[in-house]
Each structure stands twice: as C-alpha cells, then as structure tokens.
C-alpha cells in the first residue's frame, strides 16, 4: 500500500522521528512501515541514533561565571558610546545639511552671472556682425559699369549710390593713409586725363579693388568702434593722437610707393586684420 510520503520525505523526517517531534500520525505510520521493509533506512536510523547520542553527551564550553551578570552593563555602555557617536554624526549631518544647499546656491548664482555675461558679449558680437554684413551688402558691384565707378570716385554720383569721397569724408575714423591714398588716386586721375587708355585701365582694375577694400575697411572700422572692449585694437590699427607723427611719416612713405606696391600693402593689411 502506497502512502502520500515518498522515501526522500521519510528520510528527511527520520531525525524528528528519533526525537519524537512528529505530530502527524500518518507520517509516523509511513516511517514505521518503510523501516520494516527497507534495510537501508534502518541503517540510516541506527546511525542517526548514535549521532544523537553523541550530541546529547557533548556540550559547549560555558562562558565565565559572571558573564551574564556583566553583559547588560557592557551593552548599556556600548549603547551610550554609540549614542554619543550618533549625536556627533547628527550634528555633522546638520552642518552638511546647511552647508551643501548654501554651496549649491552660490554655485548657481555664479553660473547664472557668468552665463548672463556671456549672453551680453554674444549680443554685442552679433550686433557688430550684423552691422558688418549690412555694410557688405551695401558694397557696390565690382566693375559692372565703368562709368558709374568713375562717377562715384569723382563725386558725380547717381541718386542711389553714395560717392566714395562722401563715405570717406563722413567717417573721421578712416585712417589718414587711406584718405590720402584716395586723394592721391583722384589727383592722379585728373592729371592723366589725356592718357585715356591708361586711365580706363586704372579705373577698370585698380579703383574697383581699392573701393572694395575701403568698403571692407569701413565695415571693420564700424565693428571696432562698437566694440568697447577693443580700444587697444583701434589704437593700434587706426593710430590715436599719441602716434600721429609716426603715422604721418608712415603715410609719406606709403604715398611714395607705386600703386602696385600700395595695393600689395593694403592686401597684406587686410589679410592681417582678418
């Protein structure tokens, strides 16, 4: 007759069977039935009984006599020490609770201040760029109409286009070098009226280039004026009152050069400024 307990379950319950710790009568019956038929299980039972015998007769060494009398005192001492440590840690954590938010707020303020400063700088730079672009858009088409160009140079302008001489005169910050260069070019034009072919060649090649360069310089000049932080650059590039004598001597030197050499210097200057 089969029971609801298998051999493995019966084996696992053998220790409790030996120590009479099984309440389930059906399980006890199953174990006893199995023990009658299964010799291996009987051997297991005998070995377990001898082990329990060994466990009963063996014990652990007892702690010192007054150990349990003194234990509550030791525990209370340790609790007090732990509480002191904890109160110190609590105070420390309170300190950090204040310090960490304070540091965070300071950092946020610094970051906000820096970001707003950067934004202002960016706005200034963008404004300068947009002014520069506007000026460049206004820049005349290179050598589309030779007559227009010569008119502009000579001050005989059409309605829509501003004569270059006026642009130069309007802006006091235009360096003397370039004003003189322009004047020189105009005078040269007038003196060489007879030589029409050379004038035409000059007008068609050199003047548009000079005009273009001057327009760019004007745009750069406006950018530099608007940028309040770049006073030094303005001084260096456009020579303030202190350096006026030195610049005049340089102007003279410049005017003594051939137009090709002048053009080359202007090109170099433009490249350096870029």
């Amino acid at each position, binding site marked *: 007759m089969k029971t609801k307990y298998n051999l493995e379950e019966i084996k696992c*319950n053998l220790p409790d069977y030996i120590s009479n710790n099984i309440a389930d009568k059906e399980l006890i019956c199953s174990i006893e039935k199995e023990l009658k038929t299964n010799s291996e299980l009987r051997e297991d039972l005998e070995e377990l009984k001898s*082990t329990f015998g060994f466990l009963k007769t063996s014990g652990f060494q007892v702690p010192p006599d007054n150990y349990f009398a003194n*234990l*509550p005192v030791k*525990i209370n001492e340790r609790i007090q020490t732990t509480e002191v440590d904890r109160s110190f840690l609590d105070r420390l954590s309170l300190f950090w609770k204040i310090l960490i938010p304070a540091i965070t707020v300071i950092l946020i303020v610094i970051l906000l201040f820096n970001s707003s400063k950067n934004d202002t700088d960016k706005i200034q730079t963008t404004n300068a760029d947009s002014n520069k672009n506007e000026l460049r858009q206004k820049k005349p088409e290179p050598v589309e109409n030779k007559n227009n160009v010569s008119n502009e140079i000579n001050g005989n302008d059409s309605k829509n286009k501003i004569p270059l001489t006026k642009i130069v005169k309007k802006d006091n910050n235009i360096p003397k070098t370039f004003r003189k260069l322009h004047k020189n070019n105009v005078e040269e034009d007038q003196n060489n009226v007879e030589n029409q072919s050379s004038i035409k060649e000059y007008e068609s090649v050199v003047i548009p280039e000079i005009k273009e360069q001057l327009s760019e310089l004007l745009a750069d000049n406006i950018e530099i004026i608007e940028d309040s932080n770049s006073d030094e650059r303005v001084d260096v590039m456009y020579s303030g009152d202190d350096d006026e004598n030195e610049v005049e001597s340089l102007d003279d030197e410049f005017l003594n050069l051939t137009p090709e050499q002048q053009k080359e210097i202007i090109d170099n200057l433009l490249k350096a400024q870029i």
Partner: protein
Amino acid sequence: MSKVNLNINSDDAEIIEAFNKGNQNAFNLIVRKYQERVYWVIRKMVLDHYDADDLTQEVFIKIYSSLKEFRGESKFFTYIYRIAINFSLNHIAKVKKTVHKTVCLDNTDVSSKDKKADEEMDAFERTKLLEEAIGSLPEQQRAVFNMRYYENLSYEEISVIMNKSTGGMKANYFHAIKNIQKFVKKHRLSELMEQN
C-alpha cells in the same frame, strides 16, 4: 505605573510598549530576559566565545535602535532570533572560519581537571569534536541545525527566520545531522588508526 509593574516575567508586548514610551528600564528587562538565549544562538553559530560576546552586544544595540520599528507581526523572540542569525551569518561570511579556535574560558575547568583528569579530558575532546563538527557544516545547515536541535524551533518558525520553504528546512536539518555523523565517524576512525 508601568515602571512598577514591569518585571522579567512581564509580557513582551508590555515591555516593548513601555520602552517605546521612553522607559529605559524596559530595555534592561529585555536584555536580562533574552541575553542567554541570544548568546547561545550566536555562540553555536560562530563557536567562539569572544566573537559571540561581541555579536551579542551588537544584536542588543541593534534591537535598541530598531525596537520602535517592531510591529508585533511575529513573536518577539523570532524577531530577535532573526537579527542574531543574520549577524552570525554575516560574521561567518566575513571571517570564513572553518576551523574553530578552542579557547579555555573558565579557570574552574582547570581545577576540576585535576580530580577527574580522564573524564574531563574525554569531555574536553568531545566538546572540541562537537564544535569542529558543527563548524564543518555549511552556514545554512548550521543555522537550521542549531535552531531545530538546540532551540527546538518549529520548521515554520525556522522558515520564517531564514526566509526559505519548510521542506527545504527539513532537508537542511537531515543533511546537517548526516554531515555531523560523517565528521564524527571519520574522526573516530582516524583516532582508532592512531591507537593501532
């Protein structure tokens, strides 16, 4: 009023309530009531008196700090037992102790040795063998064996403490006894071989 009525035989719930109301004497009662059981639970797990002493103190410090969280869903001793077993298992895992250090704990043992030297030596050897046998058990088997054999806890209680199934606990107990049996058998055989 509660201070006057409380004593070591008072109900756990009453003592805990008094402690939660700020009665410091209530905690001393808890210590006095459970210190021996907690010590022996730990001692049979870690096998060394000094380790057991230290862990017992730590268990009561833990109880002191977390007693307000005890909701009475299980028996108070089961709650203490769980803390003690967990502390012991953590300690065993930390130390990885497999061979027990035998320490002479009591000076009176030495004086009694003089009277019945052979018997005392035999008892000493047995104790040593028992501790080594228990020390050779895997951590979980050791915990289950101690709880079942020495503390006579039911498998249901053990399964709650160990957070494992009841069937698993039964199997652990059986295998723990079988392993002790093998260890003792092996030791006795080697002793016999040495004598021959």
